[in-house]
């Protein structure tokens, strides 16, 4: 009982604090905007040069206060760039006209196991007719098996990370799957229909890449599951190519560098030869490896089992319509959703990260606001006589408030602009790994390229304005209230 009362009291306290903050921010912003507008209108005003000179005179305080803004805004820009890139990635992975069929009850490819009955020929005839065909008369639909493979990291240092999860997608006809997902190769070619290649003799480098030779070099036992000496042909995303490139080379002990065409990988007890690199742009496919479906199924115990059936309808409206139709189609017990819906579901972690960033930004902003308040209060107490003189010269209270508010906004913007620039240089173009998930387990590990866009910078400057306004408003109010004669005494 006592605990409940205490909890309610604390929640009420926090509620009141939040309400006061919202009120303070609203009033400060309104006053600041009015002050800027007022300052732009020609008429008698305290010269801005007076504020500038004071900022230079107390340059140490100005620099320290602005530095706090640099840190807060710089960090905000980096964090927002990260989350925005995650959002862009989930949105970029979805093609609006694509439809996904998963196992009934499953919302994630990782957990989906489609019944064998899910076939193109089992779809309603009108749906079959609605699916576009390529020039060879093949339907733009692909059955895919998606497996998250546990890969022991080759030559991993004993104290470091020993294994990673690699996402692999098995497809039947690469040209159809590529077209359905809008994927092109930036280098190399797609794997053959057989999906296997003898590598010991035909390697361009002339080195012996046979499993026996490589396992001997790695000093590990030969894989038990290798049915033959041929390597599996695989096409990999640009992101995972970079990630795998951090592994140390067996012979030199140095990072082997971004994976290229013809490189050999060691996954799941088999050798995999890279035949192509996918140019996947900003999508989760950049973190995947693609090979023949039957080989992947055989290799990882998913015989005759597919995860998804993707249909490219090329028209978002049609995709919605067919989605509704298939949901009511009793002969197929599957979970149907548009690709857009599927990837939107994976935004749960993004939303949680965004919420966390907002909390962090608010808390750090409070620190910055209190810093600028301290500076401005000190400036006002030191310049009480100046204020008295200004008042005697005929400047109104409002003009005094405008002058001090603009001074705090100037300090804030100096810091904010530098912070935006710092954030831009720290985050733009940087590669980071993360996870996108619907929050119910599963999800995808992704490698994303962070980018700082105009909206992120705009948000940084908006927060700068809010912080400068709130931090400067209360001291400016106290400056405005000073009585001329008292301040001169």
């Amino acid at each position, binding site marked *: 009982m006592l605990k409940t009362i205490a909890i309610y009291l*604390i929640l009420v306290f926090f509620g009141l604090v939040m309400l006061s903050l919202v009120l303070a921010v609203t009033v400060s912003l309104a006053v600041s905007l009015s002050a800027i507008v007022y300052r732009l209108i020609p008429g008698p005003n305290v010269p801005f040069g007076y504020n500038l000179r004071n900022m230079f005179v107390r340059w140490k305080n100005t620099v320290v206060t602005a530095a706090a803004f640099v840190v807060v805004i710089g960090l905000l820009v980096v964090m927002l760039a990260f989350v925005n890139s995650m959002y862009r990635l989930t949105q970029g992975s979805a093609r609006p006209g694509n439809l996904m069929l998963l196992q009934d009850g499953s919302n994630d490819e990782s957990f989906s196991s489609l019944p064998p009955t899910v076939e193109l020929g089992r779809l309603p005839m009108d749906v079959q007719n609605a699916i576009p065909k390529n020039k060879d008369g093949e339907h733009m639909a692909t059955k895919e098996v998606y497996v998250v493979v546990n890969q022991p990291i080759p030559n991993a240092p004993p104290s470091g*990370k020993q294994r990673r999860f690699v996402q692999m997608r098995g497809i039947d006809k690469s040209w159809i799957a590529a077209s359905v997902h809008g994927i092109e190769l930036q280098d190399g070619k797609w794997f053959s229909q057989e999906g296997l290649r003898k590598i010991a003799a035909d390697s361009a480098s002339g080195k012996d890449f046979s499993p026996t030779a490589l396992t001997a070099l790695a000093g590990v036992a030969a894989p038990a599951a290798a049915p033959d000496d041929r390597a599996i042909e695989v096409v990999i995303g640009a992101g995972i190519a970079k990630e795998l490139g951090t592994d140390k080379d067996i012979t030199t002990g140095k990072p082997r560098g971004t994976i290229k065409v013809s490189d050999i990988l060691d996954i799941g007890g088999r050798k995999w030869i890279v035949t192509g690199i996918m140019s996947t742009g900003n999508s989760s496919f950049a973190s995947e490896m693609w090979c023949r479906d039957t080989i992947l199924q055989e290799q990882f*115990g998913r015989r005759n089992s597919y995860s998804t059936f993707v249909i490219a309808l090329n028209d978002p409206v049609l995709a919605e319509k067919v989605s509704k139709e298939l949901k009511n189609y009793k002969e197929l017990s599957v979970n149907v959703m548009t690709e857009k819906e599927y990837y939107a579901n994976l935004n749960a972690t993004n939303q949680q990260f965004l919420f*966390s960033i907002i909390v962090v930004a608010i808390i750090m902003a409070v*620190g910055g606001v209190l810093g600028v308040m301290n500076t401005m209060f*000190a400036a006002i107490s030191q310049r009480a006589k100046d204020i008295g003189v200004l008042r005697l010269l005929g400047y109104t209270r409002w003009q005094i408030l405008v002058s001090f508010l603009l001074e705090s906004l100037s300090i804030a913007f100096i810091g904010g602009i530098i912070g935006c620039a710092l954030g831009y240089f720290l985050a733009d173009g940087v590669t980071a790994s993360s996870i996108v998930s619907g929050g119910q387990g599963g999800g995808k590990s992704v490698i994303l390229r962070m980018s700082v866009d105009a909206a992120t910078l705009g948000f940084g400057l908006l927060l700068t304005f809010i912080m400068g306004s709130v931090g400067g408003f209360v001291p400016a109010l106290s400056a405005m209230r000073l009585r001329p004669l008292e301040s001169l005494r």
Partner: protein
Amino acid sequence: MSLLTIITLAISIAVLVAAAVVLVLNPRLFLLIYRNLGRNFLRTSLTSVAIVVLVIMVTMIWTVVSFLDASTAEQSQNIKLIVTERWQLPSQMPSSHADYMDPEKPNAILPELKPYVGKDDFMTWSFYGGSTEKDPSKRTRDNLVFMFAMNPEHIRPMMDDLQDLDPKIIEQMQKDESLVLLGKERLEMMNMKVGDKFTLVSMNYKGIDLKFTVGPVLPGNRYNLMGIMNANYFNRGFDTYRTENKNQPHPLENRRLNLIWLRVRDKDAVAKVGGIIENSPTFSDRPLKCETASSGIAAFLDAYRDLLFGMKWLLVPAILISMTLVISNAIAITVRERRTEMAVLKVLGFRPLQILVMVLGEAVLVGGLSGFIATLGSIAIINWVFGGIPFPIAFFPAFTVPLDALAWGFAIGAGTGLLGSCLPAWTARSVKVSEVFAKVA
């Protein structure tokens, strides 16, 4: 105790010892430091509030990071091992795989494993998840339930944080196999109470929908969103499925075991048990891998490594820099306003070192106290009111602020106070009496 706690504790003790030395050697100086803080109450309050909010932020981040670090730190004794399918996620093994490691099945267990695995060193998990809502379009996070299906006898010896679970609850679970233990938050989300009954429409084992009775609530925050059910009841679901489907087995019947947990004495045993399991021909149809729990968690957390790196090495330093700047600014302003006072103190016989200590002391006192209050408040409010930090990372539902945080807060506040006040304190120490009074004159 973590390295972080040891360092912050050392800083805290050093600061307290220094304060005690000042108090003993020069009590008047100590009193002066204390009183000076009250002279500009507004500035002290603004600085203090800034420190409090920033320390709360650092405390929250360190809580998450230190918990994850502890989870991935290798133990030297009583090491838990996770046995899973070697190559893929999610791990789905035949339930017979567990028999070869179960110490209570002497005829089935691999003979080489017998010396390493004791009766209370084994458990299995099968994941069973579903919704209380039949209509897929009405399924939300509130009506989704995720459970570990396991032998109730293994809960107390093997489940983290459940060692003190009432043995009567285990008996209840054995008597009534439909009894499910749910976390507090999950129950609240489902709007149910102990004794209520519900049917779960399975999402990962289609066609195996089970009826449950809500049992006692799982203690603590760790299992807030989850449930624990009896594995026998789960397995019986597959038998029922066969009966109802003309003796056809469920498609996943042979893949219903997700994890096997073992506990071994030391690192030597880890290597030996790992070798036995990974090289045994018994599991050649579905090869297994055996790794320590910490290694498994570390691999799972790898997807978050850049996020965690950013929290550790970008966010925390940025907050600490921000705090240092706020304190530095406030103290610099104070020193500038009190140049005359510093000169007077020197005239009265205060030595430059004493003035330096006074200014440093003011910053350390306001920083240390604010930091301590912040972490005390964090422990009380975050743990008590919110039940932990609900940061969505991996499979951890909420992170409770540890008591160690008391040392963190004091050390962060005092440390940044010390760092931020170095320059202003040096300026105060270097005030020249002649210059100050020449200006006054």
